[in-house]
């Protein structure tokens, strides 16, 4: 795991982004201070929601099993005891209904956090996410904004079958009026969740079930209650100069492992953690590709019309002359997720696939082995 110390050093040295007027927290930290504390993504999310709920009484939580059950994945543990049933609402199994209720409450200035047990269930409520949340600010010409957060686990878990494993990043990211975030580490989870709750627009917050239990080091700055990450900025997790690998959510971990393997073979990979799917940080991606001249996009979802497709199009439009090799897209298999464990492993990208793809862009391998 790339330590927090190393990450700060990278950012210090990177000249890729020079945002004026964005939050100073990113540039402020120069000292590599005390030994980093570790925090799981679950605790990061819990603490972020807790702090925002205590800071603003208009924030409330709504979803199935968020209260007495302490959260289907225990993300909302302890919140019912702390804030009471008026602010942590256990709903009946009525996604369309309670999502719409959240949107209606947001019209009047409350700040709901609507939890979907998984984003697969959001399909029952997608009419409200798109039509009454995302489009309302536009249809009302700015009169009615919708400061709502839709959160929940997204993408494949382990052995849960086809109807519980789809990745919805590209579905929501294609819709104007929404902001779509996908955190990876605990720092991402805390910072992006706080930014999402404070944001006046509808935010789709895509978590990952398998990441909930993973621990990441967090600095004191991240633990501060006013810590926020900007929406629309990607993070360069690892600097490199030979090939750019973009990923989000769980695939960032895989990409980092792949980068380790590649570095032993002499290929220096730059790993970009997208963090924000909509708006996509095209500037960072393009600047990175202009530096390395090669690109591999990694995602867990279905390949057609996916995030990788959008990144490819963006790079081809903006940095065509800089590309030395065709862009490689690594995505999930173009099939509904199978149940059998070995088939599931084949249907989701693995570290070896990323390594192979990166080598192909560097012309180190000539085989046309199928990407998983």
């Amino acid at each position, binding site marked *: 795991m790339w330590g927090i110390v190393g990450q700060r050093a990278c950012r210090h040295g990177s000249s890729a982004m020079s945002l004026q007027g964005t939050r100073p927290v990113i540039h402020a930290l120069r000292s590599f201070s005390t030994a980093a504390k570790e925090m799981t993504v679950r605790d990061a999310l819990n603490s972020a929601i807790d702090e925002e709920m205590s800071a603003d009484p*208009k924030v*409330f939580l709504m979803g199935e099993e968020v209260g007495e059950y302490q959260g289907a994945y225990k993300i909302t543990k302890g919140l019912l005891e702390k804030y009471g049933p008026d602010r942590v609402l256990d709903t009946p199994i009525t996604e369309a209904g309670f999502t719409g209720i959240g949107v209606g409450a947001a019209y*009047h200035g409350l700040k709901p956090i609507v939890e979907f047990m998984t984003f697969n269930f959001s399909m029952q409520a997608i009419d409200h996410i798109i039509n009454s949340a995302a489009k309302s600010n536009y*249809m009302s*010409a*700015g009169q009615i904004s919708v400061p709502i957060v839709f959160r929940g686990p997204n993408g494949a878990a382990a052995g849960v079958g086809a109807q519980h494993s789809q990745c919805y990043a590209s579905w929501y990211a294609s819709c104007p009026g929404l902001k779509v975030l996908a955190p990876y580490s605990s720092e991402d989870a805390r910072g992006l969740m706080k930014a999402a709750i404070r944001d*006046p627009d509808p935010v789709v917050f895509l978590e990952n079930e398998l990441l909930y239990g993973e621990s990441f080091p967090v600095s004191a700055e991240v633990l501060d209650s006013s810590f926020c990450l900007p*929406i*629309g900025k990607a993070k360069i997790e690892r600097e490199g100069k030979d090939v750019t690998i973009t990923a989000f959510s769980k695939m960032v971990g895989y990409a980092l492992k792949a980068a380790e393997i590649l570095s032993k073979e002499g290929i220096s990979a730059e790993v970009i953690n997208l963090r*924000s799917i909509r708006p996509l940080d095209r500037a960072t991606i393009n600047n990175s590709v202009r530096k390395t001249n090669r690109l591999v996009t990694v995602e867990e979802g279905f390949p057609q019309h996916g995030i990788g497709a959008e990144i490819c199009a963006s790079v081809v439009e903006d940095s065509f002359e800089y590309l030395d090799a065709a862009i490689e897209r690594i995505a999930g298999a173009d099939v509904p997720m199978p149940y059998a464990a070995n088939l599931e492993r084949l249907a989701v990208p693995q570290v070896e696939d990323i390594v192979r793809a990166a080598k192909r862009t560097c012309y180190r391998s000539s085989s046309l082995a199928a990407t998983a």
Partner: protein
Amino acid sequence: MASAFSATAKFAQPLPLNTTSSARSQDKLSPPALFDPFRTSSSAATSPFLGSTRQLLCKSNRPLSHRRSSSSSAVVAISDVKQKKPKSSSNLLITKEEGLELYEDMVLGRSFEDMCAQMYYRGKMFGFVHLYNGQEAVSTGFIKLLTKDDSVVSTYRDHVHALSKGVPARAVMSELFGKTTGCCRGQGGSMHMFSKEHNVLGGFAFIGEGIPVATGAAFTSKYKREVLKEPNSDHVTLAFFGDGTCNNGQFFECLNMAALWKLPIVFVVENNLWAIGMSHLRATSDPQIYKKGPAFGMPGVHVDGMDVLKVREVAKEAIGRARRGEGPTLVECETYRFRGHSLADPDELRDPAEKAHYAARDPISQLKTYMFENKLVNESELKAIDKKIDELVEEAVEFADESPVPDRSQLLENVFADPKGFGIGPDGRYRCEDPKFTQGTAQV
């Protein structure tokens, strides 16, 4: 809670468990005159439930007739009460001022919609336009009882709801013409009327979509009072929707949650018997929508939606109930739309006899008759109102005509409340900070 709806049309209370008949046991709450849905009365104001279906029933011997006669609840129509009382103004349902206000609002709705039809056929209005002719009593009867803080949520047939709530006619007309002076700057259109100032929360194209949003607005009212401790927060939300919507899942989900959490909302069903070309009877297993309220634990009321005074009586009770914190109510207004579903609908499936039957019960004429009979107004006062509304609507059209169309730069505006939502541009700065951001093509 007992006599809340006793003076009006049929109503059904949520019963304790183990009772099967819907309302027999409620007889003791209302006067004993039973209303037989198949008996026509001499006054045009009373009429059988689902008037036109009498023909269908005679033709097809459906079990519906059996079911209805066995479950008819105790009812006294307002007009029966009126006939029994002496003609003294102290017993009237409205004062002169209220009567004039109601009349003006209904005439505004009617003239506005007629003008919309004209403008559509002249090409000034385009897309989908759904007119409200014939249903004015429901909008006026309910919305004129609301304060400015109360909210209204509607469907695509929302022009008159917006007008009744107070959105100026010129703003609505400009919106329909797609001009930048419209209530949504031309970005919403006929089906998406929003007004923050007047608490009109839309305007939704999908049926059933507005119901959860309305429930959320009601939830906010309760949340503000209980969690944020704002003591005066008692605003009520009205959700208007049609008979077709009552078969949609979201409707039932919201009936459940509104009753569960006792939200200050009134669900107003504008049952005009037709969903485009689909008759309510062909689409619904039990067409008596008001009965669906008690199944979820709230009272269900059926009222004659062509009579603004009856609607107003029911509305007073329902809104009062919600404001007092007693929870939601389901009100079914039997009404009729004189025109087709939209201006593009040839309206061939409806029986002309049915249309004539309801045209004879035009809410505006009924109110006029009532006011004349009770000597509340004279002819000239009403004519003055007619003239005033005509001028208002004409002026609205002129205003809309002369207003400018939106600038190109308006295309990208208002997508996000926080415009940084468009992300980072190639120069590393937020795109919205680029002065040329909204010019040029829509590429972002």
